[in-house]
C-alpha cells in the first residue's frame, strides 16, 4: 500500500488534533502516532521577540520536504506522514511547523518524526527573520542543528 504523505506550506495556522484525525480516520493499521509541533518562542538568548517572519523558496521547499518524507518511508515502517510548515509573520505562542508520523509501533513513528524535524531544520529552504526590541535581523543557523541532522546520515 502506498503510504499517505501530506505536505502543506501555508500562511494559516493548523490544528494538530484535526491533522492527526485526518491521518488516522478509518484505519486500523496504525498503532502509534507521534506529533511534533514547533512553536514561536517569546525570547531568544534572553532577548524578547515580537515576531518571526518566515521566508521560503516556493517549489523547492515542497520538493525538499517530499524527498525527505519518501526517505523516511524507505527507512522506517511508517504508515503515514503529515508535514505542515507555515510561512509569513508568526507571533510568539503560534505554531510554526507540524510533523505527524504514524506506524504500527512507536519506535518507527518516534524515529521518523525526529529524522524529519532534523532535516527540516537544516535542509528545507526556510529562513527566519526575528523582530526584537533592538531591531530585526536574520536568525543564524546553529551548528547543533547540523550535528542533529548528521546523526541520520547513512554510512
Amino acid at each position, binding site marked *: 500500500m502506498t503510504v499517505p504523505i501530506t505536505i502543506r506550506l501555508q500562511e494559516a495556522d493548523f490544528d494538530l488534533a484535526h491533522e492527526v484525525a485526518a491521518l488516522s480516520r478509518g484505519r486500523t493499521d496504525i498503532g502509534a502516532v507521534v506529533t511534533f509541533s*514547533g512553536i514561536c518562542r517569546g525570547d531568544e538568548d534572553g532577548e524578547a521577540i515580537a515576531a518571526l517572519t*518566515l*521566508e*521560503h*523558496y516556493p*517549489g*523547492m521547499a515542497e*520538493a*525538499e520536504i517530499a524527498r525527505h518524507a519518501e526517505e523516511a518511508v524507505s527507512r522506517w515502517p511508517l504508515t503515514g506522514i503529515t508535514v505542515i*510548515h507555515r510561512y509569513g509573520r508568526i507571533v510568539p505562542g503560534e505554531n*510554526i*511547523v507540524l510533523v505527524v508520523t504514524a506506524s504500527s509501533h512507536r519506535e518507527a513513528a518516534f524515529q521518523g518524526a525526529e529524522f524529519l*524535524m532534523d532535516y*527540516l*531544520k*537544516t*535542509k*528545507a*529552504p*526556510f*529562513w*527566519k*527573520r526575528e523582530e526584537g526590541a533592538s531591531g530585526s535581523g*536574520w*536568525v*543564524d*543557523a546553529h551548528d547543533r*542543528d547540523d550535528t542533529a541532522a548528521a546523526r541520520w546520515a547513512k554510512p
Partner: protein
Amino acid sequence: MKVLYFAWVRERVGKAEEALDPPPAVATVADLIAWLSQRGEEYAYAFEKPKVIRAAIDRMHVNQDTVIAGAREIAFFPPMTGG
C-alpha cells in the same frame, strides 16, 4: 538562466530574481558566485563570504563545485533556519 536570491542574500543584492547569461568560462556554482561578485558592490556585499552561501540548481541542493551547464534555475541563499 533564472537566478533567485533568498533571505539576506536577496536583501543585499536588492532583488529576488533576475535573468542572467554568464559567459562560457563561468562553469561551476563557485565560478558563478565569483562572476556575480564582480557585478557591483551590492553583489560583492551579498557574496563577501562565499563559503557561507548555499546554492540550489533546479530546486535541488548542490555543492559549489557543481557544473551549471543546462541549469534553468539557480538559487543562492544563507544556511537554512526553518523548522
